[in-house]
């Protein structure tokens, strides 16, 4: 995720999460869902799906170990779906 100048750590982390879940867990890009839907339920579900894949605690939150996993170099093929 390209860093947004002046973004707070929380905003940076949110972008890392959004970008990662869009790329590898088919999170619909921002704008495809109403803001409310995207921020509350779909992201939490997709986060849990990613945490389940990597054997992390399924908190549905971008905790430290989840963000650490998202920053590891990897293959560009999604982990779920086509």
């Amino acid at each position, binding site marked *: 995720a390209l860093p947004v100048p002046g973004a707070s750590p929380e905003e940076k982390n949110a972008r890392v999460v959004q970008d990662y879940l869009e790329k590898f867990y088919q999170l619909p890009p921002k704008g495809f869902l109403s803001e409310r839907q995207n921020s509350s339920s779909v992201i939490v579900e997709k986060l849990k799906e990613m945490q389940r894949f990597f054997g992390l605690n399924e908190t549905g939150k971008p905790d430290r170990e989840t963000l650490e996993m998202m920053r*590891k170099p990897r*293959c560009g*093929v999604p982990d779920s779906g086509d």
Partner: protein
Amino acid sequence: FMLTPGNPKWKQMNLTYRIIKYTTQLSKANVEDTIKEAFQVWSNVSPLTFTKISQGEADIKIAFVRGDHGDNSPFDGPNGILAHAFQPGQGIGGDVHFDAEETWTLTSSNYNLFLVAAHEFGHSLGLAHSTDPGALMYPNYAFQDPSTYNLPQDDINGIQTIYGPSNNPVQPTGPSTPTACDPRLTFDAIATLRGEILFFKDKYFWRRHPQLSIVELNFISLFWPSLPTGIQAAYEDVDKDLVFLFKGCRYWALRGYDVEQGYPRDISDYGFPSSVQAIDAAVYYRRKTYFFVNDQIWRYDNQRQSMEPGYPKSIASLFPGIESKVDAVFQQNHFFLFFSGQTYYKFDLSAHRVTRIDRSNRWLNC
């Protein structure tokens, strides 16, 4: 392992590949040799064959490209996404793209082309990502020595599910990733490291964070590419901020996550007689290092830098209740934690007795 949704596969077993665009970082010959070896990982365990062509339409087209390269999956510059591949099919089907902006190497430096290529070819053949952290088809990059690479059983099972067994009269097998909560789990070695606890097993180690008590499995080679697998003993010298790892009669020193220069060295440095060719376990406490060899214990005086007279002794004579061979040991507060098979013994150094016996994998949150 997982198959790509829809279970796409090649109808023919004899596939062709063509390298359309090379990287400038490696010679053409190196790229071609590496790609060939990466395909052999899959042809060794299945009926598939791979033939390189230089002209015309190949089943699997390979290219090093950067940024947006017209397939709706742009690359992201150095690190992050390293490469991607398409499932079996016509046209772009089976094709593999490597991010040209990565540093591609033939060594343990990031990123080793052989490992990434072998992974991507798994996708070209119909495999999706595996959740097994030791599998080749695990999504995250983790260096392993290509010269000793052995395709894990998880990946063999996956490719054979799609294309059937190898034509070899002897079916190839591969290593399986240890699972933390396997009741039969035993450890090769254990050491503390600046508050963390490292549990070594085969080519892996679990890393237990002190506060979070999270346990994560890693390849030894991901952190220390020059270390061998199968570490047999390990201890942390907290006074020197060094961790010593032992295999056979050699030992290495780690400072944090860096391997110290000038290693490996021979365990005769400690004053062991040549009859001692390997160490089962080791632990450091108050400027003494305790070495466990079969049913005996040696104690090394780190201040005098010599083995103490009167050793070896029987382990039970110093640690009553520790009757069997010690696989691993580490110190925590005023306890030694001895691991023997699937059991650990908590030895109170003040009370001079075992105060708790439990399953070894309790330490992995099982």
